[in-house]
Each structure stands twice: as structure tokens, then as C-alpha cells.
């Protein structure tokens, strides 16, 4: 399966040229761009690890691409890497754009477990198969399992 979190996940994975254009769009709006990564793709996992601080001072997309590539060199293929842009202006002070810049080489997806409750109600739990492994050891040699 393909996790479809992020703004452009229904498109073919973005090329570096496309990523750079999106980053430039964010910088042109005065937003600070941040690179984050995780190996826990649960839809409610909000706090991905930060690849250093948001780049408040960087105004050139090439600088951001440099950081994305450094992050990929360490976590590419075993983690999700996303690019997030923050707008600190009053009335927003939140994320304006967030999209994936890298995925693990294979994505095993999620199990849905159902716990039958009273009456007909069911308590649902979404669990990533990848998180059966310890943090940092996920998405390695996954191909055999998918």
C-alpha cells in the first residue's frame, strides 16, 4: 500500500525539481520550511522527528534541498521524510503545506483490529505493521513481508 498522507500523495512521487518548486513557493510566501522524518506512519503520529530546527533564515530553495538530501542520506529508504512549511502570521501560526519527500522502499500498511464492545459497538485500532519492530529497526528487509 501507499500511505497517502501529505498534500501530493496521490500524484507520482515528486521529483527533486518538483520538490524544489514547492519549497520555493513556500519561501516566496515567507513561510519557514522544516524537514521531518519518522518510521511510525500512524495517521495520528503528529510529532515526527525534526531534522534540525525549522529553517527560518533560509530564503533559497537550494539550501532546503541540501538539507533534504542530507536527511535522505541517513534515513532514505527506511523512513518517511516530509517537508513542512510554517506560517507564523497572526490568524494562522500553523502549517501551510506538508508533503512527503521520501518514502521507505516498501510500505506494509496497517492492520485494523476490532474489539467488540457492548451492543453492536466496536472499538477500532489502527496499527502499522512496521511498528511491530523497534523504532529505528523498521522498514529494513521489508520486501520479504509485503
Amino acid at each position, binding site marked *: *500500500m501507499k500511505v497517502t498522507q501529505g498534500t501530493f500523495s496521490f500524484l507520482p512521487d515528486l521529483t527533486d525539481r518538483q520538490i524544489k518548486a514547492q519549497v520555493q513557493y513556500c519561501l516566496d510566501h515567507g513561510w519557514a520550511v522544516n524537514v521531518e522524518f519518522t518510521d511510525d506512519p*500512524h495517521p495520528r503520529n503528529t510529532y515526527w522527528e525534526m531534522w534540525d530546527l525549522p529553517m527560518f533564515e533560509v530564503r533559497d530553495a537550494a539550501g532546503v534541498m541540501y538539507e533534504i538530501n542530507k536527511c535522505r542520506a541517513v534515513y532514505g529508504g527506511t523512513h518517511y521524510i516530509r517537508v513542512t512549511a510554517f506560517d507564523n502570521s*497572526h*490568524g494562522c501560526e500553523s*502549517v501551510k503545506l506538508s*508533503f512527503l519527500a521520501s518514502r521507505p522502499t516498501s510500505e506494509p500498511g*496497517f*492492520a485494523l483490529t476490532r474489539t467488540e464492545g457492548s451492543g453492536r*459497538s466496536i472499538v477500532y485500532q489502527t496499527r502499522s505493521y512496521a511498528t511491530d519492530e523497534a523504532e529505528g529497526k523498521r522498514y529494513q528487509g521489508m520486501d520479504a513481508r509485503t
Partner: protein
Amino acid sequence: MDSKATELKGKERYKSGVLEYRRMGYWNADYVPKDTDLLALFRITPQDGVDPIEAAAAVAGESSTATWTVCWTDRLTAADKYRAKAYKVEPVPNGPGSYFAYIAYDLDLFEPGSIANLAASIIGNVFGFKPLKALRLEDMRLPVAYVKTYQGPATGIIVERERLDKFGRPLLGATVKPKLGLSGRNYGRVVYEALKGGLDFTKDDENINSQPFMHWRERFLYCMEAINRAQASTGEIKGSYLNVTAATMEDMYERAEFAKSLGSVVVMIDLVIGWTAIQSMAKWARRNDMILHLHRAGHSTYTRQKSHGVSFRVIAKWARLAGVDHIHAGTVVGKLEGDPATTRGYYDVCREDFNPRSLETGIFFDQHWASIGKVMPVASGGIHAGQMHQLLDLFGDDVVLQFGGGTIGHPAGIQAGATANRVALEAMVLARNEGRDMLKDGPQILAEAAKWCTPLKQALETWQDVTFTYASTDTPDFVPTVTAAE
């Protein structure tokens, strides 16, 4: 407008009998509205022979302290303060026999935080007043001191996006069709297919409540199965507006509590439940971390005709104060009424922290929102993937685009319909951000995506030429005019 008739004072003013409203103090051409006044703009159409200033004064009187005859008991009160004051009357451009009447109301006339109280005054008895042929409330200026007495949207656009983890693009929804007749099991099937295919939300229709073919609990249970399955198969947060509209508040609370216990992120109400019920549900939603979707069922009975009723921009303002998170605000290009400039005005009312006076979009007053939350407008009714460039250009990112027929009616099925819409949207956002001219290149951008996305190709082939081009009835009275260069 002429303002000759002067207000009477003292003994003459309070002599028993009937007196013109303008002479009772409801017309004051020199009045300068205070920052704390509520201002209302009415479109008035007096009966033949009724002086427009007297008609405006009568509206001010009947919507505040007056009755048809003089009452000495006014003298027990600070009546000068409580009288609403019509302070400006001007002819409607190209509207013979109609006038715009500006009326100021003192803040003390209104209970804090109660739309029911506001509505009972401003659109109460006065709308049936005989000396007028017709009356329409066009716009209101709500002072900050008044805005601050309301909770505002239970969630608001910013927090909704954070909760859903969806940024930088409009959200996508679909109303389940057919709106009536599906069993719970079949209904959930539509929800699952649409959400798995790429939509963020599905939606109950306004009149799906608890009928013989599907009682509400069946719908909620099967919808939650569908939502959770779709969430697990995509890794995205999904939702379905579960309509909790019911006969009594007790029933609505019961349904909302059940939705919450099942883990739903959103519940839905219809405008016809009334303002008090809307405010109650907004408070419930704030307390229970729930997004509150409002379907504007019934509004066209009083918003659509320009001569009489209440403009939707006023309804949108009241809904924002009352505390809903979503409101249907028009599509322009779809099947329902919606002039582009007027609709733009509604969206601004929902989404901005300050609305400057802008006659071409129907906004008559500066309006400060004092950092109250923002309402996500919903564009729903007769829209399809082939219009994506127009929709994104008209509405920007903070909107829910709802493709009901445009998802479920797809020739290859519901999932394909959902995928077509999601791909069209993401391709268009990507292109816009890259600096391409959406309006010019839109069809080409869609065609490029359709080369690798068969569902989009099929959607474009099916609906390519579908448009709804009818004249709008509710249009701005003022059009920008080009000033000749010196």
C-alpha cells in the same frame, strides 16, 4: 435623502396618539454611529405613497422600542439610548422604489451571546410591517464588544487542519447518494469506497435522519466501520459528517454522544434546527473536540430573492458567531444559486479576520472579527473534476469541495470517482504553486494528469461539457466602474 422632519421633544412628543416614527426619534440624519453600535443595512420597499425616510424610521422603531402609538411608559426609560436610529437612506442603484436604510442599534439592546435574541429584534415583527411592500436585511456590522460575547467556531479552520493533518489544499468530500433509501450496510459501502478512493470526508444529506429504511444508529455504526477501514488502508485521517439533526435537543445530544463514543471526528446539523439549537450544539462540539458541520437547509426560502428576506451574508455572520465549523456557502459554477462576487463576499465573511467594506462583493460595513475562529466554507452541488481549476481559483485552499454526483456517478465506480477528484485537485495545487496560470492552463493540467490517471480521464470524458449557466437572482447592487484616466 432629505431629513427635514425634526424629532419632537418633551410634552409634545409624549401626547397620546399616533405620531410619525421620524418624529418619535427613530430618524436622525446627524447621528454618528458609535464603535459599539450594531449597524444594520435594510433594503426597504415602501408601499406606494409612503415616504422612504418615514419607512426607514418605522423599521428602526419596530425593530427596537416602538409600537404603533405613543406610550408614556417610554419616559420611565433612557428611551433616547434604546431607540434604534435610522441615520442614512439612499435609493438602491437601478432599483426604483427601493432604498437602502442604515440603522444603528445600541449595544444594550441585545443579550450577550444570543443569536436568538438578535434575530428576534432585527428580523422580528418588523418583516411583516404593513407600510412596507418588502424588506430585506442586507448586512450587519457587529461591534467587537458584541463579537466577544460569542464562543465562535467550535474548532475553526486552523485547528481542524491540525487535527486532520491535512494542509495546503482544499479538503474533498462527497454527499452519499441516493440521499434516501439506502440501508445502513449499503450506505457504509458508499462511505468506504469514497474515502478509500481519496476523499477526506463523506456527508449525510440534510434530510437523512432516522427513517424506516435506516435508523440513525445503523448509519453511524456502518459509517464508522467504513471510516476506520478507509483510514487503515490509506494511513490518512478520514471522517463522515454524521447528521444528528432530530426532533428535540435531547435526541440530538443522544446522537452526538453516540457519534463521539464511536470515534467520529465530525457531526452535522441542519440550519432548520434553529439558532438556539445550533448554539447548543456548538458548545457541545467545543466540549467534545468535535468538528461541527452546518448544512444550510432552508436558507433559500429567505435568502434568494433580493427584495425580501435576509441575505446569506448575514446568515454566515450569525453562523460564525454561533459557532459552526463548516457552512455551505455556494459553488458559483455548480447547480445552485450563486453569483461570483456575492459568493466571494460570503467566503470572506467566513474566513477573514477583517472584512473591509466592499460594495462589489456585497459587504457594506467594515467588520472586525477579533480573532474569533474561522469557518470552513463548503462548496457543494453540481461540481465535478473538470472544473478543478475554476474552483481552486475561486475559493483558494480553505474550502471543502464536495463532489456528490461527481464522485458516486463515476462510470468506473465510487473509488475511481474519488481518485479522479483527488488527483485533479493535487495536480492543480502542484501546478498553481509552481506558478502556472490555472485559469488558462487548467484544462491542459487536467489532461496531463489524465494521461497517467485513468479514473480522471473517464471523469473528464463523462462530465467535460456539463455547466450550469443560469442568471443569478442575488447579485451585487454596485459594480466597480472604471474611472477615466486624467
